[in-house]
């Protein structure tokens, strides 16, 4: 006797909602620049644990990565990423590369693979953090690889966005582009506010765990 008649309109709207508003599993946008950067703790490819709280007093750069992503390859093949990593190290900036692809997804690396990649690409980050559950990426609302963040010595997020100003996969564009991260690092170290503090990130969609949606 339970005649539960389903209103047709409810069905239709429901479908509409499902089609247009897929459940974004995480915060609609990441943290705002000028606000404290989200805390994180992660283990690096050598088994060492890194916590943002322990890095107070130092400028920190975060770089999400997926070594098979053409946009990541663009900046590694051109040595742009490695050069900036070395510059950062030279100035006492802690550059953390975050391998945020979920287990089984493109760009997922084991500790060994991460170390091999660092060697083969001649990269020079302070560490490669392993983030197979994409927790660090999620905390920062990262959407692409490479998605770049700069955190100042007080733990405040001062830059988020792209590595540079020309969104393309063409290596030839790098010299023409404004290198936002390099400029941002210099400004932070000089005690100045970052001019372009929030830019358009570009790259491959970050490979979050599939169950997250």
């Amino acid at each position: 006797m339970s005649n539960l008649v389903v209103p047709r309109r409810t069905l239709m709207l429901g479908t509409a909602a499902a089609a247009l508003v897929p459940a974004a599993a995480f915060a609609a946008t990441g943290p705002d620049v000028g606000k404290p950067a989200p805390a994180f703790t992660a283990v690096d490819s050598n088994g060492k644990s890194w916590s943002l709280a322990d890095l107070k007093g130092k400028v920190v750069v975060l770089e999400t990565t997926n070594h098979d992503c053409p946009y990541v390859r663009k900046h590694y093949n051109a040595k742009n990423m490695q050069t900036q990593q070395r510059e950062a190290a030279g100035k006492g900036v802690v550059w953390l590369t975050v391998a945020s692809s979920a287990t089984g997804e493109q760009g997922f690396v084991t500790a060994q693979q991460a170390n091999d990649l660092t060697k083969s690409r001649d990269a020079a980050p302070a560490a490669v953090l392993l983030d197979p559950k994409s927790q660090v990426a999620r905390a920062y609302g990262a959407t692409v690889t490479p998605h770049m963040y700069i955190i100042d010595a007080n733990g405040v997020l001062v830059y988020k966005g792209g590595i540079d100003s020309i969104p393309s996969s063409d290596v030839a564009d790098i010299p023409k582009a404004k290198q936002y991260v390099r400029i941002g690092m210099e400004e932070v170290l000089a005690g100045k506010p970052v001019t372009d503090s929030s830019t358009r990130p570009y790259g491959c969609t970050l490979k979050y765990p599939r169950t997250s949606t």
Partner: protein
Amino acid sequence: MSRFPAFLLGILVAIATALPVFAQSVVQTDNVRTELLADVSTVKPGEPFWVGLRQTIRPKWHTYWKNPGESGLPTEITWTLPPGAKADPIVWPTPILFEVGGIINYGFKDESTLLVRITPPADFSGPLRLEAAANWLVCEDVCIPEEGKFELTLPSGTAATPAPPAIRTLFEQARRSVPTESPWPARYGIAKSGDPTLVIDAKGLKADTIGNVYFFPAEWGPVATMAKQNAMVDANGIHIPLKRGDAKTALPPLLAGTLVLTEKTADGTVKQAFDVSAKLDPAFVPSSVSLAGAVGSEELSLVQALLFALLGGLILNLMPCVFPVLAMKAAAFARLAGHDRTEMRRDGLAYTAGVLVSFAAMAAIVLSIRAVAGEVSWGFQFQSPIFSLLIAYLFFVVGLNLSGVFDVGNRLAGIGQGLVARGGTTGAFFTGVLAVIVATPCTAPFMAAALGFALSQPAPATVAVLLAMGLGLALPYLALSMTPALQRLMPRPGLWMDRLRQFLAFPMYASAVWMIWVLTQQTGADGVLYALGGMILIAFAIWLLRFGSTASAGTWLRRGLAAVAVLLAFGVTLKLEDRPATAASASGNATGGVNFDGWERFSRARMAEAVAAGKPVFVDFTAAWCITCLVNERVALETPASRKAFEQAGVVKLKGDWTNRDPEITGVLKELGRAGVPLYLFWVPGAEKPKILPQILTESLILSELSSIEQTKR
């Protein structure tokens, strides 16, 4: 990265070679087949024509729109043209929204044609050679940048000649998928929070015909593409509250983008896309009517939800809509009093089983609807006139039974009341089922939050919460049947039992009258005719069947007639379905069911406006079939003292009528984590968020809420 199957490639090549060679250039990459086409075969110097970059994308892969969303890159075309020739920017087709791992992107799947207008130089002769270098990003889970070089050589002449029909058809299709200019002016305002709200001043839209509204911002920066858009449509137009994007610069004087919506027309649902360029309207400061985190909206844990559900179910026994069934149960219990304990216990267990099975069935229905539609609400079945009518019949028949018009012995197969009235275990079971069916229009305190939670949770939690609610509903009777000590408190059986039983018929009749009244709110005055006519037919059938059951030809004739009468009564439901369910409430003015005297009709826009104007706002979400709502109105909202206090405080009183389906109200309820009415919101002037008042209102509560704003004013 597997390649296209070879045979598919073969087919594509075959198609490509079948077309005239002079008007195209094809590039086949791993994931996309791209060709450059022109809508002319011969170019006239100085006369513009169109070319299209047509991409056939590998199934499940996609390319990107001019604003790709949170990741991805738009397709780019770089032209190398003869001196004096000009290529305009790409005219983009309407994008679709897709989501990968929670990240929102705008782009194209299957096929897209990017149109470009080319103006050849006025002074040239000989063939026109167009060269294009295009690059695009194509993604499924992984992203591949691809590129191609295209070449198109077109002869020139004194007059342009159109391309062959096959190609012209492609261009026609491509033009159809380009958004048209918006027929309505658009503007946008910036809230104090910095979030923009887009307003399309489309007067006279019918809210219930418009759906799937989404605004695709034309560029990265001003608007966050990741944020949900909860568009509101009312007679004044479309409001889309947006979220500020990541660009740090001020919002632009013009906010451009593509507005997509679907409209229900007589011939089905039509998708429309409009190019919108919204001027910044400094006078329009949308109030941040973010309902999220409204004071009093509970964030529940599963344990809390289960507890609330149990409590809610328990209290449900006392709610007006369950009263008739409670009464029936009391009658059944009285009948059983004096029987031995095992039977009593069995009866209690059967009743509980009936309640739980019904709740489980409801959970199954809720889950399956949700799997299909993604949205369910409590009491939604009462938004269907058919359901209202069937329930009215049910109340009526049960009433007749209690009055003694027919007896338990008469087996009226197929009619629920027969089962309910049947003694023993089966009867108890179906009483439980009946209790659940009539309980649905009621929300008891605690239940709302638990239900809201249940309907939004994964399947196991939904089932658990609904079952807990059922247990709560069944608990008093179960406890009674299990505890001899309690049973001893029951009066001894006697003549009073028959009297009680007959008396209880009257609440049933009253409930039937109420359901018919609800029905008239849904269908108009004709509903009375159908419902009462149906009831006469049912009564007639019962009368026919009451004659002795000697197996004569006459008996069979009577049975046949009775069956016809019952069928006719149920046939009425077909008549009801043809009616537009929202006719009454969508007509704009006050309808009989819900009293709008002294109240304005709720719309989000009106609420936002009143809140922005700094006025206190009271919102009452109600429905004709919700007794709790009506009782609250009677005892708390519409008393002379409350009316006076509302008036003195200058409160804007808004009433949302959910008697029939209303997407806007359903949306608000959902946002607040509620599954049904009643729901009361109170905005104190200047508050960022509304306060949610309890589900059971009292006059003193309303007066104290209103006096609190009087004090803050001083």
